[in-house]
């Protein structure tokens, strides 16, 4: 397994640069190759999850801290699985959906570049390497947001690119500060140096720049301005990738890794994360309710749902830093991470559903739609499953993660947070009832009488994700699955500072 780790990055990266060579005529061949790549990455990710141990791959056999290492631990394999699932589904959906656009092979190539970048971010054990992969994924996503080259797409892409570049520069600046203060770039060694010497002003400044930079990438309120423009402007499968995994891999994952494993948690840090999370939850959902553009509404919900994830992780950090009960802390982190992967599944399903509706009807304005339930029964069914999941209706997956978050907040004595979580969930339900009511129920407008259901790969991709939405509750309910998938990821964060000891010990074993 360990020998296969570079394949997560090398395979999509290599194929991404080969695909443009297929040109216009080899479009179908290119599509098949790209699908094979995403499916094999998904298979590899499943293998990685059930491998279940610490794995370290040292690039070029240079041992750390001299060389660069790839680290596979519970959290990385968990994120790889989320990326694999969403990428496979979005790629399958693109087969038919992207026929509307020209230059399909360029699209496929950018898509795979983005996947390579995200896999690199979650595997990298070197903080500068993390930045490089983050830039690969971001640059591909800027280009993909502007892929349609129409007025709105270009405007959104420019806005996204300016804010994204500023975020990247913040991150690079703080990497420089960390290097200046600790003299190493390997995350395990940085963590050890910080534990030995304690925090100083430079490191505290670096940490705040990290939070701002990754917060911008994760679109947490108040850094969210780009997301409601960028996510709806991209082609639907790309919206699914951006909302589904990009903001998580580049934002929340990187933030959690830096906060928990490198710097270590503290009370102010925990409060910062909880505040960012609650602000995102509340502001995101109230901005979402008023939207009439379906994809824009979904994009605002991404902000709100990311708030849940960050709130859960931050609550865990806060309880730990206060020395509270570790049961509630790890439960809060479990809820946050489980909501992360649930959101990846149901939000990408919702964006694919909106793409299916847009392709069939030519519009995504809710006011111009109606009665689609009769002509597009399958799309209606998956949209019902996804809406019920995001609103937290039992027994769909969103219910379980929200339940865990509420239980852990109550258990640790944060009744206000639990109340906010429930209220935001109710407002979410209202706004998804609105989608159901305006898009799928009611009268079918005159001009939409001859709308037909999208058949083929688009439907298969949506049904695949819908089945996951229904079945993912089992991840917490069946103890065997929970121990294999979720708990290793939670352990990485709960025993945050063991990360450096584990990595260093493992790499010394490899030298012997």
């Amino acid at each position, binding site marked *: 397994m360990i020998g296969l780790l570079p394949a997560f990055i090398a395979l999509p990266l290599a194929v991404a640069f080969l695909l443009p060579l297929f040109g216009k005529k080899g479009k179908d061949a290119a599509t098949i190759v790209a699908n094979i790549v995403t499916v094999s990455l998904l298979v590899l990710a499943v293998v990685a999850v059930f491998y279940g141990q610490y794995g370290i791959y040292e690039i070029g056999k240079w041992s750390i801290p001299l060389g660069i290492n790839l680290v596979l631990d519970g959290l990385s394999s968990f994120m790889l699985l989320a990326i694999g699932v969403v990428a496979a589904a979005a790629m399958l959906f693109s087969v038919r959906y992207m026929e509307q656009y020209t230059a399909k092979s360029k699209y496929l190539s950018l898509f795979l570049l983005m996947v390579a970048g995200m896999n690199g971010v979650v595997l990298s054990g070197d903080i*500068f390497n993390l930045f*490089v992969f983050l*830039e690969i994924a971001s*640059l591909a996503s*800027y*280009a993909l947001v*502007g892929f349609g*080259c*129409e*007025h*709105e797409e*270009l*405007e*959104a*892409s*420019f806005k996204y*690119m*300016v804010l994204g*570049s*500023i975020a*990247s*520069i913040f991150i*690079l*600046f703080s*990497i*420089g500060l960390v*290097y*200046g203060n600790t003299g190493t*770039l390997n995350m395990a060694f940085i963590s050890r140096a910080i534990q030995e010497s304690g925090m100083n002003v430079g490191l505290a400044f670096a940490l705040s720049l990290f939070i701002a930079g990754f917060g911008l990438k994760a679109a947490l309120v108040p850094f969210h301005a780009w997301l*409601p*423009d960028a996510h709806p*402007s991209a082609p639907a499968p790309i919206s699914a990738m951006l909302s589904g995994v990009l903001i998580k891999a580049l934002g929340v994952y990187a933030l959690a890794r830096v906060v928990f494993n490198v710097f270590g948690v503290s009370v102010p840090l925990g409060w910062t994360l909880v505040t960012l999370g609650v602000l995102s939850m509340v502001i995101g959902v109230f901005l979402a309710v*008023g*939207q009439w*553009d379906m994809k*824009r509404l979904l994009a605002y919900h991404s902000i709100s749902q990311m708030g849940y994830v960050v709130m859960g992780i931050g609550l865990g950090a806060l309880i730990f830093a206060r020395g509270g009960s570790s049961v509630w802390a790890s439960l809060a982190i479990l809820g946050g991470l489980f909501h992360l992967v649930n959101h990846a599944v149901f939000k990408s399903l919702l964006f694919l559903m909106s793409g299916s509706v847009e392709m069939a009807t030519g519009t995504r304005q809710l006011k111009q739609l109606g009665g689609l339930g009769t002509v597009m029964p399958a799309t209606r069914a998956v949209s019902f499953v996804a809406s019920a999941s995001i609103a937290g209706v039992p027994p769909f997956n969103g219910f379980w993660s929200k339940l865990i978050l509420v239980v852990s907040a109550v258990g640790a004595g944060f009744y206000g947070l639990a109340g906010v979580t429930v209220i935001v969930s109710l407002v979410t339900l209202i706004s998804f009832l609105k989608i159901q009511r305006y898009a799928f129920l009611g009268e079918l407008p005159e001009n939409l009488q001859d709308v037909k259901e999208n058949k083929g790969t688009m439907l298969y991709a949506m049904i695949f994700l819908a089945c996951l939405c229904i079945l993912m509750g089992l991840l917490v309910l069946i103890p065997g699955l929970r121990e294999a998938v979720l708990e290793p990821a939670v352990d990485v964060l709960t025993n945050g500072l063991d990360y450096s000891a584990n990595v260093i010990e493992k790499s010394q074993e490899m030298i012997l």
Partner: protein
Amino acid sequence: MPYALCFLLFMIGLYCAVVKKNMVKIVIGITVMEYAVNLFLIMLGYRFGGVAPIMEKDTLESGMQQFLNTSVDPLPQALVLTAIVISLGSLALMISICIRTYEKYGTFDITEIRRLKG
């Protein structure tokens, strides 16, 4: 003192990127920020009167300790080279988006490029 000037350069770039209305000026602001960070990285490894971090025959004769005390840190230079390549890529993409936007809207003024709202 050089660090303060470097930080000032960074803030000038940030100000330019945030306040200016012209797309090209925003791009210039971002580039200035990138250069400020690159300068910062270079300064981390710089040392007055330093020598290149290459071991030669003379180095061994004049003593290891002196080599350690005078050689500059090569790692930030490698980082900066990588960062420059990345910023070249993002600059090219930003400029091409500016050009396409100008073709569509006929202006670089971001207060007039406002179709998205909500």
